[in-house]
């Protein structure tokens, strides 16, 4: 790399709480690749599409405030969660295209001495690696290719839909970024019908049967296509697929034992970073191959 990549890292809540392995592995991979990540410790929760159902204006103001802190660093904001990416980017899209709305949001932000200018982009870590770092460069760093592993990519909704918003060249119907990344890490990416489908996370509490069945379809799809493990760029999908896996097995009437890895974890493994540093010990369903 000629120029050091520098980003403002919006961790989201999950990476600091229920999926600590996501933050660990992201930081380890960034360090190894020489990518500078400055944590946005000032940021608040993105509202996860739920605050958005209750108070639209408040969710706009809070998400805009988060972007303001990336702007202070004059850097692109990198997210680690599909839903953070969706809500932050959707906020940006709306205020960038509506001067009246922008003024209204900025009026509130002025009360705490902030102003949104619209100078920082927002992108998920997956696309920072793909578009900015480049798979060619990544391939050169691979020391422990994931040879002989069948890896099932699970894209998660909010990075690929609505495609109009994301502008990441990903097709909502035939996404391929994760597949390409898996291959760059030396693995064999498997194709299965549910790879671009929903895990149901957002109705976990009120409609667990819906959520379990959607996650169940994905897990069984991966199993039936001979995957050794799954990989996802979204910690919310991960929570469903990993933490709830045994309950999902009960719903589906099948024994399920499918390790699910976070995106930076497979990159880290292929870069030769030790599993402990990537937080693999935090998973409920252990990735036996790497322990």
């Amino acid at each position, binding site marked *: 790399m000629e120029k050091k990549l520098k980003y403002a890292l919006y961790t*989201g*809540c999950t990476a*600091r*709480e*229920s*999926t*600590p392995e996501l933050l660990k592995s992201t930081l380890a991979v960034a360090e190894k690749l020489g990518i500078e990540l400055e944590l946005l*410790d*000032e*940021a*608040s*929760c993105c*509202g996860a*599409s*739920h*605050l*958005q*159902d*209750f*108070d*639209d*204006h*408040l969710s706009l*103001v*809070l998400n805009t*405030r988060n972007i303001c802190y990336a702007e202070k660093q004059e850097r692109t904001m990198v997210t680690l969660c599909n839903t953070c990416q969706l809500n932050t980017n959707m906020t940006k899209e709306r205020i960038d295209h509506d001067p009246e709305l922008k003024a209204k949001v900025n009026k*509130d*932000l002025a*009360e*705490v001495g*902030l102003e949104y200018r619209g100078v920082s982009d927002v992108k998920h870590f997956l696309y920072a690696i793909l578009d900015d770092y480049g798979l060619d460069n990544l391939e050169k760093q691979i020391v422990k290719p994931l040879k002989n592993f069948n890896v099932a990519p699970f894209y998660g*909704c*909010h990075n690929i*839909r*609505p495609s109009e918003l994301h502008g990441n060249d990903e*097709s909502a*119907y*035939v996404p391929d970024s994760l597949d390409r990344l898996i291959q760059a890490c030396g693995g064999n990416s498997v194709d299965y*019908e549910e790879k671009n*489908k*929903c895990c*149901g*996370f*957002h*109705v976990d*509490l*009120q*409609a667990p*049967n*819906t*959520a379990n*069945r*959607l996650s169940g*379809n994905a897990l069984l799809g991966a199993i039936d296509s001979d995957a050794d493990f799954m990989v996802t760029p979204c910690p919310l999908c991960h929570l469903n697929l990993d*933490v*709830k896996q045994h*309950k999902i097995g009960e719903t589906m009437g099948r024994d399920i034992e499918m390790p699910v890895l976070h995106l930076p974890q497979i990159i880290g493994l292929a870069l030769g970073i030790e599993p402990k540093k990537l937080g693999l*010990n*935090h998973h*409920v369903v252990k990735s036996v191959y790497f322990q």
Partner: protein
Amino acid sequence: MEQIITKKVTFKVFRFNPDNDVLPYYREYKLDVSQEDVVLDILNKIKWEHSGSLSYRRSCRHGICGSCAVKVNNKGVLACKERMFDLIDIFGTEMTIDPLSKERAVKDLVIDKEDFWKKYDSVQPYLVADVDAHPEKENIITPKEADQLLEADYCIQCGACYYSCPAVEVNPEYIGPAAMAKAYRFNGDIRDTAKVDRLETVSQMGSGVWDCVKCFECAEVCPKEVNPIEKITKLHLQTFEEGVAENNVATRHAVGFKRSIAKHGILDEGDLVLYSEGVCGMPQHLPEAWNMFKNGKLPMPWALPKSKNLDEIKKLVKISSTAKF
């Protein structure tokens, strides 16, 4: 002279005639596709030149009657609007053409949309208003008031969203994106008087807005860019605005985000679940919570992360809040 560009495409078409067939099957056709072809041209070509028995619906051929929706490689499309060359860009030159729902196939690509219409009917999909039978003057709607509909009135009831919705697929009670968009269409109409009624219908647990999984499939697939999930979000907001939202696990979960953000900036995930579920709802989560605890996925109460400059967040929650529960 302009050259006519054609590409050879292999189509596998879903065939099923319940009078003769025990099970559906796929029939293969290899056809030349030209630049101006839409999916309907291909279906016509198959019917007129290869299999006269192929059944599919179409009427207007102008993207307005909503009858011709099918799935190509699992992507819902309006056959008379979707350009073949665009599909080739996405999928290459092998395509499977299916009915919108294989379970509901009546013959070949024709499906029985009864479930769709039933749910559609349940939201009072019409204007409810005392209309003066002999008005003295025109009933004028300003452009701004018309804009409030957010183009929800563009829906042509093709069903592409409904039969692509994963929530409908696993929960047959869920009324689905098209009916929701329609509920919004009339709730957003200043002449209408049945807003609260509709909100009561669409906020039912098990079938209403809280059962949408927020996957954006409907927004992606809609050939008229109705963006149903955007309308569903608006309906959520309306249930709070109109005081229709009941106190239940889903509404407490939405409100709980504000509460949690006001406390720490970033969520207190455990507290959010407790607040949403109430003490009685917690036992079902205990096995997972224990697994999370064992694997270091639950921070201890004294080590909960908090945002920096929390006072700013607290102030904004105070001055920017617009909703009540």
